[in-house]
């Protein structure tokens, strides 16, 4: 029997384990936006985000029999996606640094500069301002250490609780708070420096 879209995660997981892939499709539909957003915010790259979100679902499906059904499926899925994306970012960063050391890419990190199109100009000042702010915060996020960036994104963009962050990152609750607070502190300093032109 195919489970409906409003069935809870636990029932869908059980049905998937019994071989009903239709139930897993419901789970993909349910969490694809969240996972894609998470991967995008962590990587700031749509291609990486799609690859990592897809990979997270595939890994979840392949390892579903290991999933502890007392835990939240959503948190488990988030953990997989976060780890995959962070590893991918590190891998890419490592490759970029290696290329830089080899002298093939001596220039500084390319910071995306937002160039408004004609269409964007027509959209109005407020919308453009919002876009500029988004580009600015994304650029600043890239300048803080990965461990703080991930914690800040999970807290203020994904709006997860500190408990969920601690579980996803496999750290203590107090360390999750420390990372979020230090990340915010660093971002604030960078924001002030940028806005004051220092």
């Amino acid at each position: 029997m195919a489970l409906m879209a409003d069935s809870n995660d636990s029932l869908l997981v059980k049905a998937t384990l019994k071989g009903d892939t239709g139930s897993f499709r419901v789970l993909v539909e349910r969490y694809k936006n969240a996972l894609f957003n998470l991967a995008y915010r962590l990587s700031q790259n749509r291609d990486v985000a799609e690859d990592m979100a897809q990979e997270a679902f595939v890994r979840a499906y392949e390892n579903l029999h290991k999933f502890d059904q007392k835990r939240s499926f959503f948190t488990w899925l988030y953990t997989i996606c976060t780890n995959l994306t962070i590893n991918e970012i590190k891998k890419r960063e490592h490759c970029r640094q290696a290329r830089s050391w080899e002298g093939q890419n001596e220039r500084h990190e390319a910071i995306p500069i937002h160039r408004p199109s004609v269409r964007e100009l027509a959209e109005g000042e407020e919308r453009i301002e919002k876009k500029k702010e988004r580009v600015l915060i994304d650029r600043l996020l890239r300048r803080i250490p990965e461990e703080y960036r991930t914690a800040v994104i999970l807290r203020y963009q994904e709006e997860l609780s500190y408990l969920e962050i601690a579980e996803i990152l496999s750290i203590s609750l107090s360390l999750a708070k420390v990372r979020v607070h230090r990340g915010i502190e660093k971002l604030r300093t960078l924001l002030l420096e940028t806005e004051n032109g220092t």
Partner: protein
Amino acid sequence: MKKKDFKELIFDFLDEEASPEERRLLEEKCQENKALADEKASFERTVSLLKGSAPVQPPTGFTDRVMLRIEEKPIGIGKKILQWITSPMDIHMNWAWKWSLVFTLVLLITAGTTWQYLRIQRTHLQVDQLKQQLAGLKNQPVPTRFFFYGPMAESVHLAGSFNDWEIDERFRLVNPGGGAVWSITLMLKPGEYEYMFLVDQKKWVTDPGAVASRFDGFGHRNSIVEVLREI
């Protein structure tokens, strides 16, 4: 209550965990000190910028691509069995089922223990029987064959400690077809025996094929045979 510093108050405020009293205290501090007010404002702006980040949509066909990848990797029978074994199951039972299960388990354990006990007893019994059989076999006569090569002999007899060195027709060797090889088979109990061949009723000959021989005190060497148990 532990007195929190300004930063702690700020973070509690940002996390919406500050109590009304703490919020009032924070506001008072900001009103008194412009630098603190600016700091609070900059924190709020940072969080506001973070939260203002618009959500992005996954590309169309995302779900289909995920499902395609999943369906390309059908789960093998081994993995299915592993999944069945490792996946937790919810079992709901009323008290009658629970007691039936307990009773069945107790019955199975008792039956299993009894069966195991009886099996061990039976094994012990079989071992004892085997020991007895072996003890009986120890003194069972074993067929023992003696050969003598005598192309010129007309008669060959065997005499030894097994028949008190008596010359007896029952211990006469035969040579089928008048050949040179004479032989006889005796049923002897396990042990060591001395023997000799008497050729043509007059000449005592030591068996050249014997494994050992011993002086008999009369100028001859007695052949020695050791009859072993068959097991």
